[in-house]
Structures are given as structure tokens and as C-alpha cells.
């Protein structure tokens, strides 16, 4: 029934997305931590946007409460001392718009003095648990976005000490289209064998001023298996993904602390890592 309905409404993304939700298709939630350029040549003020979304479909987007933690770990050089700066004071609620719906998200406008130095900046967002009524459970996604200024590497490959985390084996900010990206899924600092992962492409252009997704999908999906790609890590918690298109890619490792509870309900403790992929012109 639902497939038939979708079939008679080609091209109407909003309706199809609504049908997918109505038909019980569980889509991947992704806590975004977005800034347009993850590898600037020179340090500058940094504007970050933090919607909770389904980026391959441009939504639906969910309202989120003020995050529990937001900070950056920066390091200039692999042997240098890592610096931690709390960024909670820079969080401001915003209305995130998209072709599907609007939601409450957060943004942070960091002054240049915080991100002018050469080196790596590992931004970390710990959102408040989100209640997903459809599944009657909470979701909390510990999210990392790694930016580099001026090509001097630092702590991009180091564990940030999160309860759950994707440890990059390749620089998340330096990826060519057609390359691969590798990582290790961890919980409590230990690899998670055969962890379930979901991969999504950010299929809508982000307008920083709006702020939100601009209508018009970059890629038309043959069917929804291509939207949220489910894979498994290997026995050592490692994974490899291909990067077939320039833009932003999200990797989410799901439910890494089974049995977790929040307010008497199941809590899925997830780890999210973002990549930026460049065209090789």
C-alpha cells in the first residue's frame, strides 16, 4: 500500500518522506555539527550549526534541548599539549529550516581568537537525550567534527575520552572523492566488535544564514537502502567506507552501551563522526 502510494507520487519528496515515516520506515537520526570548511588555509572565526536531522532526506528535523556539553580539543603538532576550551557559552538556539519541516537547533559563532591557530580542532557535542516517540526510547549521540587550520596536524587520531567514540584512522578533514575512510568504533575506550553503523550523505546544501537545508536534493536515491547505508564493523571494531561524492558524510555507530536507561526508558548511546570530502579538480 505504502509503496504503491509512493510510486504514484514521484518527485514529491515531502510526501514520500511522510509516507516512509507513516509506513514505519526507521530512518537514521544524525546529530549534525557542521561548519562549511573543515580545512581552512588560515584560522578564522568559526560558525557551527547543530541540527538533529536526517541529512540524506533533508529531514524530518527534530527539536533538541540545550546540549549537555560542547567543547573543543585543539592541538598544534603531534607532540604538543592538547588544549580544552569549553564552548557552552557560545550556544544559541536557532530555528533550522528544511524542505520537510523546521526545528529547534543550536548554533555557535566562535570568535577568531579561538580558532586562529594552526592545528587540529576536535569539536565535541554531547546533546541531551532525545525522546524518539516512534520507538519509545531515548537517543544520545556523542558527536565529533574535526577541523584543521593550516595543515599542521595535531590530535585528529587521538581518543577524545568520550563514553562512545569513533576513532579516525584517516584525517576526517582531508579526503578526496573516490577515496576511503577508516575508523574504529569504541565504547569505554575499547573497540566494539561488529558494531552496527549507519552512513549518510548530506544531500542538501546547508545555508549558514538561513540556517537550514536549501530545497533540492543533490542525489536522487534509487530506493531508501541507498539513503541510510547500514554496515558492520569487523571483529576489531574497525570499518572502511568508500567516499563516492564530494560533500559531507556522517557516520553513526548505534547503541554502543546496550542496556542503558534514561528516565526509565531505553537509551541508545551512539557515536557520530563527520567527514568532509573534496572534489579532485
Amino acid at each position, binding site marked *: 500500500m505504502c509503496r504503491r502510494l509512493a510510486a504514484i507520487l514521484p518527485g514529491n519528496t515531502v510526501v514520500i518522506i511522510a509516507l516512509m515515516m507513516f509506513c514505519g520506515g526507521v530512518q537514521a537520526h544524525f546529530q549534525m555539527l557542521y561548519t562549511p570548511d573543515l580545512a581552512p588555509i588560515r584560522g578564522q572565526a568559526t560558525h557551527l550549526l547543530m541540527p538533529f536531522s536526517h541529512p540524506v532526506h533533508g529531514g524530518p528535523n527534530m527539536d533538541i534541548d540545550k546540549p549537555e556539553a560542547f567543547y573543543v580539543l585543539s592541538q*598544534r*603538532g603531534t*607532540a604538543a599539549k592538547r588544549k580544552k576550551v569549553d564552548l557552552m557559552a557560545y550556544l544559541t538556539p536557532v530555528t533550522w529550516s528544511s524542505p520537510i519541516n523546521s526545528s529547534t537547533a543550536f548554533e555557535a559563532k566562535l570568535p577568531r581568537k579561538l580558532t586562529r591557530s594552526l592545528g587540529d580542532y576536535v569539536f565535541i557535542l554531547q546533546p541531551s537525550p532525545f525522546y524518539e516517540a516512534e520507538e519509545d526510547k531515548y537517543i544520545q549521540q556523542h558527536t565529533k567534527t574535526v577541523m584543521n587550520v593550516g*595543515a*599542521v596536524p*595535531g590530535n585528529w587520531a587521538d581518543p577524545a575520552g568520550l563514553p562512545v567514540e569513533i576513532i579516525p584512522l584517516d584525517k576526517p578533514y582531508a579526503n578526496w572523492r573516490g577515496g576511503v575512510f577508516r575508523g574504529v568504533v569504541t565504547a569505554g575506550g575499547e573497540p566494539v566488535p561488529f558494531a552496527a553503523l549507519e552512513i549518510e550523505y548530506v544531500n542538501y546544501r546547508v545555508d549558514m544564514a538561513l540556517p537550514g537545508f536549501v530545497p533540492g536534493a543533490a542525489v536522487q536515491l534509487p530506493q531508501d537502502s541507498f539513503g541510510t547505508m547500514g554496515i558492520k564493523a569487523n571483529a576489531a571494531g574497525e570499518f572502511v567506507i568508500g567516499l563516492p561524492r564530494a560533500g559531507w558524510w556522517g557516520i553513526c555507530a548505534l547503541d554502543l552501551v546496550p542496556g542503558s536507561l534514561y528516565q526509565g526508558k531505553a537509551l541508545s548511546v551512539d557515536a557520530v563522526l563527520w567527514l568532509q570530502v573534496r572534489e579532485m579538480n
Partner: protein
Amino acid sequence: MKRFLCAFALTTVASQVFAHTPLCDCFDNGDDTISCEGGFSDGSSAAGMAVRVYDDREKILIDTVMDTDSSISFPRPAVESYTVVFDAGEGHLVTVYSDDIE
């Protein structure tokens, strides 16, 4: 900015036998001091590497080295324009022009 990028490009070209590329940037701290940071593309420390500041007649105004955290701060030179040269050795220089220091 163009000259800054040019300096970067020249450095890269000049570093083909240099496994790690020297990198440098400088900032105006807004209090009549300038800070510069150095590093390498492999994450190596620039501590102890030479830094020289020249006026527009190539007279050396400051001749020093990067400190233990690969940075250096100095009073803004009292000249109209100047250049900061990070000397990573073996002819590998990164030049930052005062026009590009913000």
C-alpha cells in the same frame, strides 16, 4: 593574501625532497604585539627553528627562534611594512607579509 598563498605554494614546490612541509602563520594580537606560529605538515615541532623579521629594505629587525610551543611573540615593528621569515633549514623558508597579518 595573494602573496601569503604564493609563499605557501613556493614553499611546497621547494619542498619536494622535504618529506614534511614547513608552515607558518602570524596574527595581530590587537595590543601592538604580533604572534607567529610554526609547524610542519607531519606534526613535527618547530621549537628552536629560526625566525627573522625584516623591514622593506631587508634589514633584520628581529632575529630569534621559535619557543618550546613552536610560537613566538614580538612587539609590532615600527615600520610601514615588514616580513616574517620562518627558516626551517636547508633553504626551506616560509614568508608572511605584514599586509597579511590580521
